[in-house]
């Protein structure tokens, strides 16, 4: 293999450049016995199939990874999703996480924020700050990142329907730190279609939502070139009950819809697609999960190259964040969850993830306590620093089992995407309830397998124990809601209400037309217009979405 022209070319053109720009973390990587750990293990004589389907890391079709040296160069980003209560308290948790060695932040918002209601809205009662940070005005956003340099720490925000508003607040908050939009890294989830089929925090109907999302993509490609404008998620689809094949197929079908929308808005694939990232689930079927990640990388590269004619390798690369499977964790014998998470995290790493969230042992009981978050983070760190799997790139390549499974997954995913295309595309498939039905069927089948014992879940339907000690439950501050409402009332009283009204009127006009809404939302946010006020205006223009019935 060493002399094979394809390998020589890869070494010269791809590997060398990377090594020059990003030297590996260590001079040498060794096994416990002191033997050298091979950077990239290869077949003795590569056949055509190897070269076209598996290839070399950092090079089309990227089956073996998106970077040539993978974790020898840089470890994945350890990013724990967190947020609760007020902006101030979430800020404390973020600082704690950074101290403990996380390398990126991931912000959870409360449900009113995600659905576009202010904390004083009737429907927000009991939900303010409960499952994430409550954000009403950009003042809260400022408090959220207080003392955290936004140009140094990359932040991922799980926000979808009102993503444009939260992004605007983020930009204005960064301004207060003296930063320009162009200096900001990070990600907004901004993946609206999966909200209708899996996650549930939709506000507007699909078409206007996609317009909002393309406005973000367009604005960022001009003003925030480092920022990832969408994180297309299969993760939530899987958590809602899909299979691994459905997870990837539906995520890709969503992604294709976004790419088409952006292209028809006049954007260049090679410019915006490198800022599209993905988000997947790592579940317990260890080998299938590894194959899934590899198949997904290969298929996405093909889709981008063949369907969308992307030329830039950056636009063909599937970069993804992974979270371990929450639905696989049990409230029974909670410590078993640590073991599950370890296996799942390992599958994600062997599958070549770019960043990772590991779930906490108390996932099925409560928002994680500080103790259990620490263990979850340590799990990643142990894999990274002790297991040795990071010393060699894509160690499972060439395994008959994994390669066959990778091929098989790719075929199945591709076929399902074909069915959606035939049904008139993802939006039509969502509106008709096709996708929801598919997910519900899988979720029901999975549950039935557990019920019948066909699927074994240790501690749940096998090796149960009757005596259970309940682990400590995370307590949220009882006064959060009250305080937040008071704070909001204060702001409403003090701000320049004339300016707010004007900003909202302008925004309404623009929303009815075609112009990009981002600058107008930023203006509104700047004068302390609330998230709810902005969403109300958009609701009046766009209407609201009503749930499709699955079954």
């Amino acid at each position: 293999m060493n002399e094979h022209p394809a390998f020589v070319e890869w070494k010269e053109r791809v590997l060398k450049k990377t090594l020059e720009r990003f030297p590996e973390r260590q001079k040498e990587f060794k096994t416990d016995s002191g033997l050298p750990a091979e950077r990239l293990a290869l077949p003795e004589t590569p056949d055509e199939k190897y070269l076209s389907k598996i290839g070399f890391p950092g090079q089309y079709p990227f089956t073996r990874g998106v970077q040539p040296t993978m974790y020898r160069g840089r470890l994945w980003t350890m990013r724990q999703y967190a947020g609760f209560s007020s902006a101030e308290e979430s800020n404390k948790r973020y600082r704690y996480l950074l101290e403990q060695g996380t390398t990126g932040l991931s912000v959870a918002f409360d449900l009113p924020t995600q659905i576009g209601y202010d904390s004083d809205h009737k429907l927000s009662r009991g939900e303010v700050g409960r499952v994430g940070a409550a954000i009403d005005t950009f003042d809260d956003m400022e408090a959220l990142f207080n003392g955290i340099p936004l140009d140094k720490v990359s932040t991922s925000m799980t926000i979808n329907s009102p993503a444009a508003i939260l992004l605007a607040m983020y930009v204005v908050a960064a301004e207060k730190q003296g930063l320009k939009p162009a200096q900001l890294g990070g990600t907004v989830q901004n993946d609206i279609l999966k909200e209708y089929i899996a996650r549930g925090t939709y506000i507007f109907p699909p078409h206007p939502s996609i317009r909002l999302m393309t406005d973000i993509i367009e604005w960022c490609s001009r003003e925030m070139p480092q920022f990832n404008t969408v994180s297309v998620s299969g993760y939530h689809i899987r958590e809602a009950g899909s299979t691994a094949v459905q997870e990837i197929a539906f995520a890709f079908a969503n992604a294709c819809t976004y790419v088409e929308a952006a292209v028809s808005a006049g954007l260049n694939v090679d410019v915006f697609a490198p800022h599209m990232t993905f988000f997947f689930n790592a579940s317990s079927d260890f080998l299938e999960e590894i194959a899934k990640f590899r198949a997904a990388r290969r298929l996405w590269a093909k889709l981008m190259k063949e369907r969308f004619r992307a030329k830039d390798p950056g636009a063909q690369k599937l970069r993804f964040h992974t979270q371990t499977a929450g639905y696989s964790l049990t409230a029974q014998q909670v410590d078993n969850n640590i073991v599950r998470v370890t296996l799942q995290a390992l599958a994600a790493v062997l599958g070549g993830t770019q960043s990772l969230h590991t779930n906490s042992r108390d996932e099925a009981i409560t928002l994680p306590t500080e103790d259990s978050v620490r263990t979850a983070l340590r799990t990643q760190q142990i894999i990274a620093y002790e297991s040795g799997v990071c010393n060699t790139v894509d160690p499972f390549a060439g395994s008959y089992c994994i390669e066959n499974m990778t091929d098989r997954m790719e075929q199945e995913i591709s076929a399902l995407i074909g069915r959606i295309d035939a049904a008139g595309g993802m939006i039509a498939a969502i509106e008709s309830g096709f996708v929801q039905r598919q997910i519900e069927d899988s979720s029901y089948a999975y549950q039935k397998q557990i019920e019948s014992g066909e699927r074994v879940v240790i501690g749940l339907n096998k090796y149960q124990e009757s005596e259970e000690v309940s682990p400590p439950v995370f307590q949220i501050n009882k006064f959060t809601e009250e305080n937040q409402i008071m704070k909001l009332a204060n702001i409403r009283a003090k701000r320049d209400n004339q300016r707010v009204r004007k900003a909202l009127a302008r925004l309404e006009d623009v929303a009815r037309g075609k112009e990009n809404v981002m600058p107008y939302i930023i203006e509104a946010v700047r004068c302390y217009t609330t998230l709810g006020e902005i969403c109300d205006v958009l609701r009046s223009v766009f209407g609201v979405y009503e749930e499709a019935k699955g079954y």
Partner: protein
Amino acid sequence: MDIQRCRGRVLIGKPGLDGHDRGAKIIARSLRDDGFEVIYTGIRRTPEEIALTAIQEDVDAVGLSVLSGAHNELFPEVLRALHQAKGGDIPVIGGGIIPREDIQHLKELGMYEIFTTGTPVQTILNTFREATERYRQKKHKIP
């Protein structure tokens, strides 16, 4: 008398802003496959909407699913709304992520039963059977 033909009519509701519907949909389907007629409200309903729907449909039990942690507000509000709409006698069965400490309290307020994650579906079905059977006997005045 024909009452045996239908095991019972049940409403499965998701009050509040919580979007976790995997469990609620599994319960709805399981109930159907167990012979119940099931009305599922979809996510993001107010307690009042759920109560009035239950009354109009004259269901034999209401099932509520909340995973987002707002159960201490939402469950009692549904009970209150049902009571106000003259449906205080309808059994209300809850499920979701509910800490053990809260369950006792919610049952004292009138919840018929509460099931947390990991409960075998058959156990839940049995409870619905028992609750609706009792209710239907009362409804149709069977001694």
